[in-house]
């Protein structure tokens, strides 16, 4: 077991983790942050995407112990005082989610994209989402939602 300090959605935590515990299970099972979900076991689908020190990572591919000293943002950390942030609002307005299982990862991947490139083209948005699989929407409304915030 290892002692790990991390900050999640601005709340500090001191945890004792098994070295093999993946960050996604630390978030879900230790901290009860169920908004980050698991969709695959090959780092392919992006459903578990979170921000680690501001950059998007697949939390199924990061060990909890590797996040020692890091700041993490999950989907639960985006809305302020119960109001959706502009990206979440755009997903709602553009019908960019159906079942909603990929949505946390999509929103966080998009957050990271817009931080790096505030006005991406449609093609840039599509390529930035290559690591995030949605099976419901055919992606167009997701791309449009991100585009609406970018402009």
């Amino acid at each position, binding site marked *: 077991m290892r002692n790990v300090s991390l900050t999640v959605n601005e709340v500090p935590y001191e945890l004792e983790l098994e070295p093999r515990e993946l960050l996604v299970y630390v978030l879900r099972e230790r901290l009860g942050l169920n*908004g980050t979900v698991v969709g695959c076991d090959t780092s392919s689908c992006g459903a578990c995407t979170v921000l680690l020190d501001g950059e998007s990572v697949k939390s199924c591919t990061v060990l909890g112990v590797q996040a020692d000293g890091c700041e993490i943002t999950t989907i*639960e950390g985006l809305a302020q005082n119960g109001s*959706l942030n502009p990206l979440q609002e755009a997903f709602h*307005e553009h019908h960019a989610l*159906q079942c*909603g299982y990929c949505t946390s990862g999509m929103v966080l991947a998009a957050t990271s994209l817009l931080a790096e490139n505030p006005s991406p083209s449609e093609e840039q948005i599509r390529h930035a989402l290559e690591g995030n699989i949605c099976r*419901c929407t055919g992606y167009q*409304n997701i791309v449009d939602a991100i585009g609406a915030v970018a402009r």
Partner: protein
Amino acid sequence: MSAPTEVEVGRIVGAPVERKEDKKLLQGQAQWVDNMRVPGMVYLGVVRSPYAHARIKSVDVKPALAHSDVVAAWSGADIDEEWAGSLPCAWIPTEDTNAPEHKPVAVDKARYVGDAVAVIAATSRGAAEDAAELVEVEYEPLPAVVDPEAALADGAPIVHEQFGTNRCYTWTLEAGEVDRLFAEADVVVSERYRQNRLIPNAIEPRAVFVTPIPATGEFTLFSTTQVPHIARVTLSGVTGIPEAKLRVIAPDVGGGFGSKLNVYAEEALALAVARRLGRAVKWTETRSEGYLSTIHGRDQIQEIELAATSEGRITAVRAKLTVGFGAYLQLVTTGIPLLGAWLYAGSYDVEGYSFECTGVFTNTVPTDAYRGAGRPEATYAIERAVDALARKVGKDPVEVRRLNFIREFPAEITSGLTIDSGDYDACLDLALEKSGYEAVREEQKARRAAGDSKRLGIGLSTYVEMCGLAPSAILGAIRYGAGGWEAATIRCLPAGTVQVLTGSTPHGQGHETTWSQIVADRLGYDVDEVEVLHGDTAVVPLGMDTYGSRSLAVGGVALYHAADRIIEKAKRIAAHLMELNVEQVEHVRGVFQGPESSMTLKEVAFAAWTAHNLPEGVEPGLEATYVYDPPNFSWPSGAHVAIVEVDTETGAVELLRYIAVDDVGTVVNPTIVEGQIQGGIAQGVAQALYEDAIYDDDGNLLTSNMVTYLVPSAAEFPRWELYRTETPSPTNPLGVKGVGETGAIASPAAVMNAVVDALAADGITDITMPATPERVWRALEEVKA
């Protein structure tokens, strides 16, 4: 059939109301099954056969039991006494169908890679996985068979020895003088197509969570299922738990596409382990495990023949399918190809019709419903064959389609059913206009003339499909084991809001919003005043669940009729309170209007609740249930156009544009309908260009995870260009038709017709799906040689 009269579409029905479901999903507050945890629960680990076909000589669970976090471990034989019945197959299409017993854990023989052979219960997920690897199983490997045609050959390994054959059944349908029409035909087209095996990949993996109450023998099963009601009755049969003591809950479910229209071994297993241990039990598949334990789709070999005049007028269709069912029959494995049985003449008027389907056991994961279920296959075969006919008679595919369209509705089609409504020319006209069809043909010619290595292709799919499953009497006639009705309850609460109980079970489709719109429109509530409850057999005891594009066309119509019953009762109460005759009161969207006075429905609901002054014989409360059995399927149709560019140097296919015109009858929420069509098209394009579940000859799944099985991302798709025409269905008062599967049904044919069209001048007449660069390049090399 009567024309719709009462709903004035366009007030709330017809409006793009924003989804009520989104806010929790966007903030990570959904209730997924895998979120559920209680103290003392155990995690299941399933030991799966690494062999496609093997006798199980012995299973030693002792090494697993030695693991400090393992609570129990059982072989198939150890747990066999838990089963009161086989895992269910609800559709036995013929009297001589070979239907094998299907145990949740195999005892004597493993029949596919992934077949469960032992089970672990441990106090952590990691321990369950670790301990599963400690179980020692001695196998005697047997020869395996994976190809459905090879499985029918003499001397093939037999999956279920007791039948002496791998044939499950042969089912036929014939109408008209087919042999004569073929003998007299000027032209006969004979085509052979393969429907690639697909993995549905609902993005939420399957999960099961069971909580028992040992003292009373009650169990609550949370499952990632599309069918909690069907699961309750069938799992009662598998486990012997009385239906009344089994509550099934489908909480938030992350997509299904047919893969969660099933009753799985792990659901039965979790119940059995919870019963044995008296503890809560959880199982969540990993994605790779899901590829070996959740159903696959398609896997058909299709032979289709058209008899036609030299002009291209089709007189008869003959279709013959050989379908890979995998190692066992899951819930509706047998019925999937038959859902296309009536559709192999597509939107065309023919005199003769012949269909034959042979289902075959192979040493592979069972196939079952995947979005479209039988109808994408039928559409693909007829739409590809019509293009082949056009090439043969030297006409444009548009012209041949126009020559053959069904134009009189309702249309009794030769295969025996009745299409409710449609206007196929209107869809095609709009699709041609929006795609700039003629201009694309001109550019195609110009590129050919210039010897451009990048060929342009344009492909059509003028489909019709049958959905909204289904009239119960028809289901009975084709030997399905249940009905096709749906139930809805409306409960007007005293404080001014309304509850809807629906037997439909959404998993991304937005029923809460759409159902609220229907109730708001009919009863005058605000959309936000409607609460829609679903997916819990204790809250909504009566239901047939969600699949086959049935929710709106059956469940939504049930809701419409339940509103009628509310209005009827409320009108009696309102008349009584206003001291009028019922005939003097008129109802308009939640207001009961008398000559000089009026009452709102909310006032009536309160009065019905206090029950201080009700008319003679009227029960307190304002609640009504309606169970609707549809008189017909619903028949969406449309014209889809794909425009592709094929690089003849690399074999790469790029989908440049995709134009879809769909007629899905009356639309309740256009935004949600567009979303359904977009997602469906994406899955169909994926079948045409990317996805393929590949087995080697020994029965190993080579595409065994999300790295090797190519689910496309946003980068692989163009923008979807969607348009609609509208012929309301005359069979229901809302005029609605199903929409969930149309995109996946229409699009593989459109894309592949475009690919073949691009390469037709090179002498290519077929590419097998998916049209990967390698396949296209090899086909080009072959015609050069």
